Structure formats: structure tokens, C-alpha cells
């Protein structure tokens, strides 16, 4: 069906040691995961110049829509696949395998000039961000949280409802309660950076990578999940200490492609073998090495079937 996208590799078969491969690898999906896969694709082009890897960023949902129709080989996702999407895949006879490729840490941020917030607990976060938790009109003052903090309204910034980042925050902090209505929303994390950097009373959250790059403009707030305040760093995220605000990001691979297209398998292997390096390079946090090894075995198994 997908003449232009579905590659038809010349090479078939198990081993691909120093072998030259060709054909297409079509990747689409989450914009959050995009940089990691882009890095992999870029490096892969050096190894296998004849394999044409393309990476899109239709978003997690958009990516799955195409993936479940069989139009792509990989679908990047900043959240696990949903039941409705699974059903769609099943209906179209698409089998897939979930691969974790890195951690993303959600950083909670305030303005550089904010000198009063030392840390926040998960409950405090919920009180601030959930609608109606403090009062009816959702206007929350710093002093409502801790009396010694200024008597000024908190300006909230959050990624839009349709991002994987919000989804995760919703799940672990809001626990299903609606978001504070006064929150300023944007789909673009750089836009949120601008917002928080421009307002002394700002409080917001977004991906760890954006915090790392804007350390000079913003300050990350340590989070207390019952074991004392923890600052988001590579170490705390990888070790799982920075909880509950770190999450894995994924790519889903089509089993059919994995079996039938040598270049897809090869790319998946390349991604897992070098994923740690690429993730760190573009601002994410690598998984523990054994996680990558485990997944490598899994796809090898799938291919052999």
C-alpha cells in the first residue's frame, strides 16, 4: 500500500554485520522524542548511507494514527500507547513493540528573581495547579501556600493539554483533577521559558532539556516527595530519586517491519545501542544500561520468530 514510504529492502535475512543495507525507515510521532531519534538517524546515515531514514514530528497522537494504519515503521511517543490506539492497531493487523529510549524529567521552574521558594512538596504543587484547590476563582497567592511567602498571585505556566508533558503532570500531580484555570498554556516549551523568565511571580513546568538550556534565566525548584527536597539533575533522574516527575519516553516499532525489513531492524538496534549517548547529547537522561540491553534482546527475539 504505501508505495512511497514502505521501503522494499533488497536485503533479507538475519545477520547484517558489515553489510550495506538500503531502503527506507519511516519514523514519526512525538516532538518530545524527535531530537533523540533525529540524532540517531543522523549518526546512522554515516554507517548506512543508502538507508533513507526520515523522521517526522506529528505528535504522539498523530504518530500513532499513522502507525496504526501501517504507514510508519517507528512511532515516537512521550506516553505509553492508549487502549483506543491499541484497538486500532489490532483492527489493522499491526503488531508492535514498545521501546523505552530515555528519561525526561519534568522540571518545576520559577523566575530568577524569586528568592523565596526553596522547595515544593507534591501536595503543594497539587494545591497550586489543581482547579479550585485553594479558592473558587483559582487565583492562588504565594501566601496561600506558605504564610511567610509574598502576598502576591502566582502566575502559572503549563504546557497545553495536548502534550505528553501535560499528560504526565496530570497523571502524577493533578490526579485527574482539572488544571487551574488561570494557568497560561502553550504548546511550545520555548514559549513557556519566555513566560516564566518574564514574570517574577511565575511558576511553571516543562521538559528537563529546556531547563538545562535556560539555567541562566530560570531556577528549578527542588521537589519533596516525602524523602526531602530533590533537585532535578541527571543523576537524580536516572536513579529515580527525582520522583514522581521523571518519565520514560518511547518509540514503538512495527513487528512486521522489524521482520521484513533488515534496515528497520538494524536501525532499531543502532538506536538501542547508542540511545544513551544520543539522549544525553540532546538534553535527556539515559536509561540504565541494562534496560537497553534487555530491549536489544527482545527485538532480536522478535526478528528470529
Amino acid at each position, binding site marked *: 500500500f504505501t508505495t512511497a514510504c514502505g521501503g522494499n529492502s533488497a536485503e533479507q535475512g538475519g545477520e547484517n554485520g558489515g553489510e550495506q543495507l538500503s531502503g527506507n525507515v519511516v519514523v514519526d510521532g*512525538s*516532538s518530545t522524542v524527535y531530537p533523540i531519534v533525529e540524532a540517531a538517524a543522523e549518526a546512522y546515515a554515516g554507517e548506512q548511507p543508502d538507508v533513507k531514514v526520515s523522521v517526522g*514530528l*506529528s*505528535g*504522539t*497522537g*498523530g504518530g*500513532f*494514527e499513522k502507525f*496504526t494504519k501501517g504507514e510508519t515503521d517507528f512511532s515516537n511517543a*512521550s*506516553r505509553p500507547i*492508549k487502549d*483506543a*490506539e491499541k*484497538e*486500532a492497531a489490532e483492527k489493522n493487523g499491526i503488531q508492535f513493540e514498545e521501546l523505552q529510549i530515555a528519561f525526561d524529567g519534568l522540571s518545576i521552574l520559577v523566575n530568577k528573581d524569586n528568592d523565596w521558594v526553596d522547595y515544593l512538596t507534591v501536595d503543594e504543587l497539587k494545591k497550586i495547579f489543581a482547579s479550585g484547590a485553594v479558592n473558587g476563582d483559582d487565583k492562588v497567592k504565594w501566601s496561600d501556600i506558605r504564610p511567610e511567602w509574598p502576598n502576591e498571585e502566582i502566575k502559572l505556566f503549563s504546557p*497545553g*493539554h*495536548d*502534550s*505528553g508533558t*501535560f*499528560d504526565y503532570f496530570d497523571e502524577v500531580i493533578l490526579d485527574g483533577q*482539572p488544571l487551574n*484555570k488561570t*494557568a*497560561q*498554556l*502553550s*504548546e*511550545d516549551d520555548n*514559549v513557556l521559558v*519566555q*513566560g516564566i523568565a*518574564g*514574570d517574577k511571580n511565575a511558576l511553571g513546568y516543562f521538559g528537563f532539556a529546556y531547563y538545562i538550556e535556560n539555567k541562566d534565566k530560570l531556577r528549578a525548584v527542588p521537589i519533596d516527595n516525602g524523602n526531602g527536597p530533590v533537585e532535578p539533575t541527571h543523576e537524580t533522574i536516572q536513579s529515580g530519586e527525582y520522583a514522581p516527575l521523571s518519565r520514560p519516553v518511547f518509540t514503538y516499532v512495527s513487528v512486521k517491519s522489524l521482520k521484513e525489513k533488515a534496515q528497520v531492524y538494524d536501525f532499531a538496534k543502532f538506536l538501542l545501542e547508542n540511545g544513551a549517548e544520543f539522549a544525553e547529547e540532546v538534553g535527556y537522561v539515559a536509561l540504565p544500561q541494562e534496560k537497553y540491553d534487555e530491549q536489544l534482546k527482545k527485538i532480536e527475539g522478535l526478528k528470529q520468530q
Partner: protein
Amino acid sequence: MAMTDGNRSYSVRKMIKENKKKQNGQQFIEWLMPKLLLLTATISVLTTIGILFTLLFETFIFFERVSIVEFLTSKEWLPWDEKTGSFGIAPLVTGTLLTTAIAMLVAIPIGLASAIYLSEYASEKARKVLKPILEVLAGIPTIVYGFFALTFVTPLLQKVIPNLGIFNALSPGIVMGIMIIPMVASLSEDAMSSVPNSIREGALGLGSTKLEVALKVVLPAATSGIVASFMLAISRAVGETMIVAVAGGSSPVLTFDVTKSIQTLTAYIVQVTTGDAGYGTTVYYSIYAVGMTLFVFTLAMNLLAQYISRRFREEY
């Protein structure tokens, strides 16, 4: 006389007659062209049918899940929660209307004024330089305008309006207007340029100032072209996506307060199509209903526009 002089080697009349016999090709072209052209004209109809086909099916599924009454009357657009969500289109519509109105308040006066300047006051040379430069404005990718609005215009406006939110309707509206200026200016200028010079001379000969020529003679004569340019501009503003998505925020709130964050119909569609929403969810289907709303919206506006344009058309 030359026409009849004897040493002439040929007769044009005869040559034409002979060519006529050979010219079955010409007749074929004459027969073929209207049909080919009709075919091209039909493409636009097919496009509309295609859009309807694309939108209707999914819109239908959406309205199986969400009542059309809620869609039209509810004042809240909270589509994210399948259970507690509410699907009132009003906030998105007001967001769109608000930014479009602001954009038009910028683009129409400035664009028309530029058109008058270029067509009636500027020298031929100045026009030849200025017009293309203005058109560059139209070609800058809208994402650039989005960041321009967010990082330049909003802070600038905040100096004047202290309670202006970082995301608001005003700044993207203004920037969208700026982006549309060349469209209004260029197309209106074309309409005004095509008013014959002899008419201008007639007016100037009566002692008119250039202003009077422009406003009382040329503008009325070019009304249909100018109205057409306005309509294209409005359409462009309604359909513009990236600027409002970046600088307007994504808060679908029913408000006419330009200092507040808003969301437009288009920004919502981008938000969902580039976002996370699962395929098959109500949110997913909602973008088709929103698309349909945009479609109906522009249809209504265009019928109005056509009525206006028809009333003002002049022949010369």
C-alpha cells in the same frame, strides 16, 4: 496606393483563405479550450467536495458523541476529559473573532492607506521599489511572526498596558494585521491602478486635489477589487494558525478582553493534530467539527462579501 499596387507578390486575403482551410486545429482548440477551462474551474468545486467529504464523516462521529446543542450553546470548551469535558465552540469562535478583528483594524486602514499612497501619490519609481519590499512582509514564515509577537510586540505593549498577559489576543492580532498589510495594499493598489488615467485627469482638471481624486473617484471605481482584497485578508486572518498558536496561548476562554490569553479555532486544530490526543478519542473527532465550523463560518462571511462586492461593482 500600396494596397493595390501591382508588383505585390502575394495577397493577404488569399493567404488567409488558404490558412483557413488548414486551420482545423484552430477550430479544435476553440472547441476544446472552454471545456478544459471548465474542467479547471470544476477543480475548485471538487476541492470543496473533498473537504466536505473529509470533514463530514468525522464530524458526524463527533456529533454522535457530543450533542449539537451543547456544541452550539455551551460556553465552555474543555475537551480533554472524556467524562467531565464540555464542548461549547463559543470560546474558540470568540478567540478567532477577536484576533481577526484586531488584525483587520490594523491591516485594512494601513493597507488601504499604503495602496492609496502607492497608487496615487508615489512616483512610478517609488512604487516600483516599495511594493515588492512590502510583499516580502507577506512571505515571511508565520512562525517568525509568532515569535516576533511574543518576544518583541508583547513586551512593547506591556509597557503601555501593564496588565497585558504574556499570552493575549492583542499582540498576535496586531502582528497578524501587519502580516496581512501587503496583501491588502498590493491587491487594492492593483485595483486602483486599473482605473483608467483618463478618469484621473478628468478629476484633476476640475481642480481636485490628489486626495479627492483618490477618495472620490478612484476608490469608488475600484471598490469591487478593494472589497475583494479585504475579504481575502479576513479569510487569511481567520485561517492563520501559527502566530496565534505561539503568541495567543492556548486557553479557550469566552472573553472579549484582548489582554487575556485565548485560543482560536485554527490554533486548536494544530494543537490537536501535532499533539498527543489518541486516535479515535472525542478530542480527535472534535478537530473535524471545529474544521467544519471554520468552513461554515467562512461560507457565511463570503456570501456576505459577495453581496457587498456585487453592489459596488463599477464598469469603465
